[in-house]
């Protein structure tokens, strides 16, 4: 409506500079010092009111490429996404004009109760049909394609007959959505459920990948010498995940990458150091790849 809402045309997120997940403790520093960050990704649900959160995001949006990452659309809900929530998401997308919009291969709500989590799905034909229907619905409402992120998993369904990587490939083929590959989630799920993380990356179709997430996780001992990895985004990216990232970059090529940190959030400078490290890892792997092609 009002021209004061008009922003410069959307800028693509760069694939040569790693972005940072925008979190409340850093708003002021970002707005006041305009740090050297390639781009920001914001959780859509934090900006569905008005006031300083939304105006702050609009100000950041003027100076940086911005992506919106939804955590509450509940794409895998048997009840379907909540229409009122979807309308709010569409309004926000229209207002911010983000370079990318993403959501998760998960569900969050049942029977009108929102469980504030990204919960696992049984990978069956029934779920596949439902999930694709819900993506179509969301992409129509937003009038654009979205990226769908692989979850971190702890529980497993014996009825899951379709491997997760195949399920993701299938939704990309059927709906035209892209994929957001969270390499930390791949690592966590592979550890927790006994998959091979490297094989997982090798099974993802590179052309569908629109973004990569990087984060740290917690290691919880559960007795018998066993550990469960918890995707708490509360630590630096560990070496094991950097190694998987290197493999992902070699397979997917230059793709926008992002550092996420959500518990015990450190100084912005720590996240910028992590982003610089991702840039270096990516350059090293892409450089090798390019040389190999030239040779």
């Amino acid at each position: 409506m009002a021209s004061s809402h008009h922003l410069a045309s959307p800028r693509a997120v760069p694939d040569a500079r790693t972005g940072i997940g925008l979190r409340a403790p850093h708003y002021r520093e970002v707005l006041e010092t305009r740090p050297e960050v390639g781009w920001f990704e914001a959780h859509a649900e934090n900006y569905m009111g008005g006031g300083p959160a939304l105006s702050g995001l609009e100000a950041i949006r003027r100076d940086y490429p911005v992506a919106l990452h939804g955590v509450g659309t509940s794409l895998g809900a048997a009840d379907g996404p909540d229409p009122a929530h979807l309308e709010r998401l569409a309004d926000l997308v229209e207002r911010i004009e983000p370079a990318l919009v993403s959501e998760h291969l998960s569900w969050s709500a049942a029977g009108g109760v929102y469980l504030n989590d990204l919960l696992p799905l049984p990978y069956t034909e029934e779920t596949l049909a439902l999930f694709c229907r819900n993506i179509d619905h969301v992409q129509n409402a937003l009038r654009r394609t979205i990226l769908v992120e692989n979850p971190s998993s702890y529980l497993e369904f014996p009825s899951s007959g379709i491997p997760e990587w195949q399920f993701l490939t299938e939704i990309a083929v059927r709906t035209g959505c892209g994929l957001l590959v969270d390499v930390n989630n791949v690592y966590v799920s592979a550890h927790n459920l006994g998959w091979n993380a490297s094989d997982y990356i090798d099974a993802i179709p590179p052309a569908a990948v629109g973004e990569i997430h990087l984060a740290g996780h917690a290691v919880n001992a559960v007795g018998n010498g066993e550990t469960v990895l918890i995707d708490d985004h509360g630590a630096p990216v560990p070496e094991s995940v950097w190694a998987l990232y290197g493999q992902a970059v070699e397979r997917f090529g230059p793709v926008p990458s992002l550092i996420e940190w959500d518990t015990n959030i450190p100084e912005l400078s720590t996240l910028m150091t992590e982003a610089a490290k991702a840039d270096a890892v990516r350059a090293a792997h892409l450089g090798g790849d390019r040389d190999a092609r030239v040779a």
Partner: protein
Amino acid sequence: MPELRDVQHAIAEAILAGPGAPIHPSLREVLQRRERINIHRNHFYTTLTEALQATYPVVCRLVGERFFRQAAKRYIADHPPVGPCLFEYGGSFSEFLARYEPASALVYLPDVARLEWALNEALHAPDSPTLDLAAVARLSPDALGDLFIELHPACRLVASPFPIDRIWRANRDESDETIDLGLGAARLLIRRSADAPEFAAIAETDFVLLDAIAGGAPLARAFERMLAVDPSADPARTLLRLANAGVFAAHSANQTTKGGLNP
């Protein structure tokens, strides 16, 4: 394999049951490594407790963190979120506290919670223009009386028989000041300034006028209520002063255009 809808309802129920609760037989064959449902249960209760703590920092300080966490756990179980925007979660916490037996000795606690919720709502309220003062000033007295206006979305009113404003400020500043509950009633107007919510104690006459307007009364009736409190009050002048302070919304759904408020 039962239908996905039934599986999701069963998992939702299992998460709400909380860490360590037995797992319903209907889930036993559906889930492998099902003891790990506790990871999701912990996540649900921990993250929502943190959300409540962020919205109700002074309530938390008044009762102590341990007590707060216990109260929050019960509240979350009884009133789980209905939507994914966490800044909208916890609006009924004051009513819950009013009925929460372990907190019954702290008679002022629910009112402090109402103040903190009003501050939270003011912070996240939609941006909206304020009522045009000149347009109001142009109205004839009759037209003014027939007018329905609304508070700006970022304005709230909270009244309490206790000095909750002093209680809030002392605890926000982490002081150990003793506050005499006999200091009496607080009538507060909550607003959003540039980037933060704030509140101020206002006169009883101002409060009554604003409360009547917020309750949907036409201005004539709101003026009557104000004059009933203080016959020497000047409602029209008070209205202009409050409008000047940005307390009213520019456009109301049921606003009459009689008298030409919108030229």
